């Protein structure tokens, strides 16, 4: 249909490949993001690309989409060598991409976003009319239902992603690249996405799926290529491999997908939450009379689909958002929940916090690692110089110890925080909070955007902290993580606790129902 497929090479062997990368290399300054990459993607296949964070997957795909320019190597589309200097060239070659961070104009409608850059003519009216008709056709064909007149900024993340896919299809792409498409989706939305991808495959489209979730790779791909540290390790046929094999190739050694932990030995109750409620500025109830307790030496997992009050709970406990009503007792003494309190007060009594959003709340990305290693604790006596100054050497020493203990890479405390990978940034935050041996650790999404090697490390540190008799409140949207780490699990739905279970006595199905606000236990009791 597109010009490029008409130009297919006569060689029948070559034309079965939609994409062929030959010896592609790319570096950013001293960092070699892609080293001599060879990749062959078959036409009409779903081809997975897996690797840890920073393995170079996104960079490779950005090169294919013309966002970056490769230092060396060659791109062949449908067997024909095709230089791709910019996104326009990629679109012409029939390549579409759904970026991890959506490339949408939020105040625009769906239609306007779809035609942007692909308008036919200088006036909008005919372009919009044509797009409306085309969208209707695509919707029916691929289960891509979105209201064409909805404002994109008001759509759910799942719908926004469909707009991105529609954008690519409207440009008549034959090859669709999806970069970490399920990271922001609910399980139901992810299932829907996979159905859409299935339809696309039936229509003969080629799909490249970048992910670090092995379950997705096993469920949907035909082939899978594993990348590690900028290199292409191997390409496998999915049906002939196993998650364990892929995981091993990803990290270069065997990893424990399960956390090794002994039984909990809970002690006294450290934190007790009673009827905690939060109503936001718009008058919406975010937390509805939440009550629970955490004891020393146990991990309390807070499960739930994102946006059901977990963030508000963490914010109130960590001291930077006021509660509307209710109380929180720490070792029997009430904590200040008014708007006069702050995170400092919490740290003083021994409550540490690893925020959900480390970029915005856990770290100052422009600071060097050593500067971040003391943020929030910079008033400690041992870090003071004299005359109101900070003792830089003392802070650096502390940072170096943290880097060593938490195996932070690269081991340089003078490197800018933004230049560490996601997993290592998280380790900087953890090192800071755990180093003080807090009585209670509040931890939100500990392994979001963190690679497998670092996940294992972080999980072990959390368990070790528990075994030292500390109480841990773990908020995570990853059910696997909640199940692997928690001793007890509470599930949040719509601002309230929809159920509590002992970790050993529940399963994914039951937790999943609780996450949807349905309590299966209640049905049985009645």
């Amino acid at each position, binding site marked *: 249909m597109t010009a490029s497929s008409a130009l297919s090479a006569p060689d029948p062997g070559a034309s079965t490949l939609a994409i062929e990368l030959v010896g592609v290399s790319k570096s950013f300054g001293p960092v070699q993001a892609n080293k001599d990459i060879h990749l062959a993607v078959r036409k009409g296949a779903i081809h997975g690309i897996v690797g840890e964070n920073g393995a170079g997957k996104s960079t490779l795909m950005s090169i294919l989409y013309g966002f970056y320019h490769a230092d060396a190597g060659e791109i062949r589309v449908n067997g024909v060598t095709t230089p791709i200097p910019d996104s326009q060239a*990629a679109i012409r070659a029939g390549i579409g991409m759904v*970026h991890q961070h959506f490339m949408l*104009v*939020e105040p625009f409608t769906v239609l306007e976003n779809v*035609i942007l*850059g692909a308008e036919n003519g200088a*006036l909008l009216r005919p372009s919009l009319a044509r797009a409306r008709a085309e969208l209707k056709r695509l919707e029916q064909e691929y289960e891509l239902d979105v209201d064409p007149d909805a404002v994109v900024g008001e759509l759910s993340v799942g719908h926004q992603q469909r707009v991105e896919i529609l954008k690519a299809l409207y440009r008549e792409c034959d090859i669709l690249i999806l970069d970490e498409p399920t990271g922001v989706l609910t399980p139901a939305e992810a299932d829907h996405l996979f159905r859409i991808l299935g339809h696309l495959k039936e229509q003969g489209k080629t799909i490249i799926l970048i992910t670090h979730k092995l379950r997705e790779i096993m469920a949907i791909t035909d082939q899978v290529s594993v990348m590690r540290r900028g290199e292409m390790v191997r390409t496998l046929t999915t049906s002939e491999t196993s998650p364990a094999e892929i995981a091993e190739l990803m990290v270069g050694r065997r990893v424990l997908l399960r956390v090794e932990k002994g039984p909990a030995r809970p002690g006294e109750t450290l934190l007790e939450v009673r009827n905690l409620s939060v109503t936001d500025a718009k008058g919406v109830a975010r937390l509805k009379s939440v009550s629970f307790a955490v004891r020393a030496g146990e991990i309390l997992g807070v499960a739930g689909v994102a946006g059901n009050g977990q963030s508000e709970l963490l914010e109130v406990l960590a001291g930077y958002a006021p509660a509307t009503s209710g109380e929180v007792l720490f070792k029997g003494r009430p904590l200040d929940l008014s708007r006069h309190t702050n995170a400092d007060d919490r740290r003083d009594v021994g409550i540490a916090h690893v925020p959900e959003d480390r970029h915005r709340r856990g770290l100052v990305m422009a600071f060097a690692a050593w500067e971040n290693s003391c943020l929030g604790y910079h008033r400690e006596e041992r870090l003071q110089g004299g005359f109101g100054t900070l003792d830089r050497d003392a802070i650096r020493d502390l940072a170096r110890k943290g880097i060593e203990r938490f195996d932070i890479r690269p081991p340089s405390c003078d490197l800018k925080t933004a230049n560490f990978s996601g997993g290592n940034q998280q380790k900087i935050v953890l090192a800071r909070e755990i180093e003080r041996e807090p009585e209670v650790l509040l931890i939100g999404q500990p392994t979001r955007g963190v690679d497998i090697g670092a996940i294992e490390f972080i999980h072990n540190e959390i368990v070790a902290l528990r075994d030292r008799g500390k109480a841990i409140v773990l908020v995570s949207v990853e059910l696997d993580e909640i199940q692997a780490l928690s001793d007890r699990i509470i599930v949040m739905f719509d601002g309230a606790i929809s159920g509590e279970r002992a970790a050993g006595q529940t399963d994914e199905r039951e937790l999943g129902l609780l996450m949807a606000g349905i309590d299966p236990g209640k049905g049985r009791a009645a």
Partner: protein
Amino acid sequence: MDLPVVLQLLDSSVRLAAPLLLACLAGLYSERAGIFDIGLEGKMLAAAFVAAATSAYTGSAWFGLLGGMAASILLALVHGLASITLRGNQLISGVAINFLASGMTALIGQSLFGLGGQTPQLDGPQRFGALTLPLAETLHGVPVLGPIWSDLVSGHNLLVYVAFLAVPATWWVLYRTRFGLRLRAVGENPAAVDTAGVSVVRLRYGAVVIAGVLCGIAGAYLSTAMSAGFIRDMTAGKGFIALAALIFAKWRPWPALFACLLFGLLEAVGIRYQGIRIGDFAVPVQLMQALPYVLTVVILAGFVGRAIPPRAGGRPYVKER
């Protein structure tokens, strides 16, 4: 107040609003594309000077207009170079342009004409004269509508009509053309434009140059239509008032028209009602003249509701990493 007085007041509001409107729309194009433009004032001032000087030398207001536009476009390109190509700070670039214009116009004016920074008095074809619209004479006798047509609508110079026609034109460009769609998109999320295969740099330069053209017309209006020559710093903060009007209008063309008319009206009131008394108290002239500036402060302090600027405004576009 009777009709003739109201009409007179509105008539002078229109005259005073015209340059604000042109500058405001200039800012609208630029800021909708994500380039903050503090330098409206400087571009207008430079255009006012070059227009008056060119007109004085050539004897034609039209050459003056072209000269003014050229000067303004030149400064706009400097702003573009600093903030788009070199990815500098847009506010600082704008401030620099204001200083540059203020200093250079006075300096060059003095060395060319030796009149303390002024240009010679312009008259006749060196200025844009009043136009009489068709039927203005015949309809004059018709009650109410007649005077409105012949006194308020008719009898302005060409550039006033240009300013007011620029409002629907801007609306049309912004919301009905491909260029407008892309322009609005690049001010919100340049990465989306880039990945859609459209050049962010070219779009932003386009917007900045349009801002230059409009500021050029505004400047020429000040020195060759509203006044009869250039006076040092004759823009007197109009560029900043236009920015306030732009915020007041939330970066939309039709509200920009009303915002500028409001500022024009306040200025007209300040000029007309000098020395009015409330009881025994004589309201100082300065207080009346300060009205537009007071409103500016009120608007910028956020008393008129939250104005959300284009999301990518003020930030140079760099691909991630």
